[in-house]
């Protein structure tokens, strides 16, 4: 293989790669896709609505729907002592958007989150985490467990 052939090869390959770089960046920038797609570069949090605080009555009607997903954000020992029927327990600090069972749910599914009552923050904290992982219908039953017990509703253990 001659030196001239090698030189020619590298010169041509260099031009090809330069042209590919130019065309690649130019076309994706022009079509606003790939690297230049805004949806992939900005955090999803701003693209979705805030979690909505709901009244006990609205919570009742949502919880009555069979498709609603109910999350208890309190500690595990509180959950074991009693919780709203069908609710599952995801303590707010343990939530991992990539490994929780929420990964398998459609993003527009109704989710109702509750914790102890007016004084607790874990339901709000968990709700904002869930909203930022892409769910669009997240509701916080803010008066929570205290209100549920006061109204004499059904308790699951």
């Amino acid at each position, binding site marked *: 293989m001659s030196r001239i052939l090698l030189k*020619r090869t590298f010169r041509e390959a260099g031009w*090809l790669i330069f042209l*590919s770089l130019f065309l690649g960046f130019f076309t994706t920038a022009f079509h606003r*896709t790939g*690297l230049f797609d805004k949806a992939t570069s900005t955090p999803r949090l701003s693209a979705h609505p805030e979690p909505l605080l709901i009244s006990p009555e609205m919570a009742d009607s949502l919880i009555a729907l069979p498709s609603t997903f109910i999350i208890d954000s309190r500690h595990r020992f509180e959950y074991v002592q009693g919780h709203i029927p069908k609710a599952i327990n995801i303590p707010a600090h343990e939530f991992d958007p990539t490994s929780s069972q929420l990964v398998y749910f459609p993003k527009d599914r109704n989710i109702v989150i509750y914790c102890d009552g007016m004084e607790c923050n874990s339901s709000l904290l968990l709700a904002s985490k869930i909203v930022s992982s892409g769910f669009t219908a997240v509701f916080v039953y803010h008066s929570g467990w205290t209100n549920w017990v006061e109204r004499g509703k059904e308790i699951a253990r």
Partner: protein
Amino acid sequence: MNPFRAVISLMKRREIIFIARMVIGTIFVAAAIPKIADPKAFALAIANYKLIPPSVGLVVATVMPWTELLAGLGIITGYYIRGSAFSLIGLLVIFIIAILTGILRNLDISCGCFSLDPSVGRIGWHKIAENFLMLVFLIAVYLSPTGIREPDSSVPKPRHPKNMP
């Protein structure tokens, strides 16, 4: 005649080189078009191999399909054929390494070679064989003297009459 030499002499035939150029060029152009059309899907296919970080993968997905397209066209038309064949050899070596590591790590992923649809099936040894075959023919194309006039360095350049002593 030993069979290895027979294959080598067959690979040097002009018709074989011509067919290899047309077939491999068409394969690369056909493979490049869906990737250019949807760089994000291709970036996902690259990310599945878990060899490079996703942000780097997105850059690769932006640029590499164009190299495939241009080099594929170069192989077909004969324009920039050395650089094109060389680039495609480089790409094939990368593909073979990527697929090989994918198989060895037992990854259940699709190739992302021609179709970005994950349902085409899992990567396997047949992909290595396909790529290796193309690699062999591309090396033959690269080393072939097809229609290229190389300047002969053994002949001194004629001097301009003005510069004559």
